[in-house]
């Protein structure tokens, strides 16, 4: 193959893309769709449930304050601290629950694997940016809130190329 033919072929292969649909995702106007409601773990079988490893969700009525999540995190990121909560719960005598610092968290989900009481899950919430370091520290009360996550776009593959839609 001659040099000129090769260069024309290379250009031609690029020009074909003018007719193909745009693949770029226009974040934040469009947001990706995820499977499930986030990463969860079933301690009875020892197997997790697939989902995005995003911001945690804490179920106050399940948490016993056993600190296993905090112990698991000590070896990874030291993001979990056990703090006092005002509410009185019969399964949580010490009234302590995890508080998570997302400035340190690496979203590995090993704290979720460590929890034997179905109290700590992960959600699809991934937009955690804040103007201050303190804004990244989520108290047990903030972790209790189920987040609303917009999900409207996924990869669609057609004959004329792939696109987000």
């Amino acid at each position, binding site marked *: 193959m001659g040099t000129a033919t090769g260069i024309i072929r*290379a250009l031609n292969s690029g020009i074909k893309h003018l007719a193909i649909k745009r693949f770029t995702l226009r974040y934040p106007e469009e947001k990706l769709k995820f*499977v499930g409601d986030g*990463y969860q773990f079933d301690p009875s079988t*020892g197997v997790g449930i697939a989902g995005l490893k995003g911001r945690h969700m804490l179920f106050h009525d399940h948490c016993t304050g056993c600190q296993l999540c905090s112990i698991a995190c000590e*070896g990874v990121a030291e993001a979990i601290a056990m703090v006092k909560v005002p509410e009185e719960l019969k399964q949580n005598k010490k009234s302590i629950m995890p508080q998570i610092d997302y400035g340190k968290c690496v979203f590995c*989900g090993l704290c979720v694997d460590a929890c034997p009481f179905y109290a700590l899950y992960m959600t699809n919430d991934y937009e955690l940016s804040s103007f201050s370091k303190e804004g990244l520290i989520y108290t047990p009360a903030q972790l209790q809130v189920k987040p609303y996550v917009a999900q409207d776009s996924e*990869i669609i593959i057609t004959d004329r190329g792939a696109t987000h839609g």
Partner: protein
Amino acid sequence: MTAELPPGLALQKVDERIMTLNVGPQHPGSGHMRIVVQIDGDYIVACDPDPGYVHRGEEKMAEYRNYILNIPHLERPVIHDSCNVLYPYVLGVEELLGIEVPERAKYVRVIASELNRCIYIMYWLAIYGIFLGHSTMFMWPAGDREFLIDLMEKMTGARVTHAHFVPGGVRNDLPPNFEDVCLRQVNYFEKRIKEYAAVFYDNPILISRTKDTGVLSRQDAIRLGTTGSVLRASGVDYDLRKKEPYDVYDELDFQVPVMKEGDSYARSRIPWLDMMESCRIIREALQKMPKSGSVRVKLKPNPKGGNDTVYKRVESGRGSLGCYIVSDGKPEPYRVKLSVPSFRNLIALPYLLKGEKLGNMPSVYWSLNYWPVEADR
């Protein structure tokens, strides 16, 4: 005066024709490392790669954490290839603890590690394109990676650092309907990477820039101890997936691409051919995978290994990656040592660059499939 100094400190006579050039460590053309190049006019006389700027002590950190908590930080050396970096450690711990892995988990691991290999190679290819000033080859792989990253995100819940493999299987089962989505996106991905031939690999400009530069002969490749795509580009048919099959690689049918030239064109083409084989492996593994069953063996909390040592290695995106674990009966390993392909391939750089033009340095350097963070660990 000079006779009293230790050998390394003796003053050297300066040749006025030779100029010493520091490439890096902040330069985007070297990654997090420095290459000290001595040039005579436009030709390289000597070259001294200087890694070590991103040493993070991963091996020492592993001695203070138990076998499970080591997982998130041991995949940090190469975040784009995180499943493959973790693979030898997980296989080694399984042998230490005597765990039998379920069949379905083995297939899930093979799929994850092949997807990761493609993700790594696409990132590597994007950088290779921008090193050669080929902007299209930066944008296409960076965009097409998204199909596989999307699959990994559905599978593991994270886009890059997955923390998916654990001793005894994988963390979670595949999401519902994953097989169809995976097949569709991998097929489209394969169709896309075949288009790279016209724009990049058969492009006469690329061929004239990379052909016959940095030639590594078959004997030198073996003698210097290179691995992976560098070794296979020099005509040595060596792939651990064939030679020492781990998990279910012995049940899968695939070819190992080998080229004889040993120049930087061959070294850049081998990973591209590897990706096509990876797509074949993924398709076959999806077909042969048991449709149901457990994916993880339940372990005791804080599992302890006996007084034992184990060495396991896998074929990563860059070459053979080994992990040596010494256990002394405690929940924490006594020693974890990673034997990384990047560092082995870097050894060949001074030999390849001698006599080359300075303009060929980026293409020869990056064709070695070298990842600075992995070499420093």
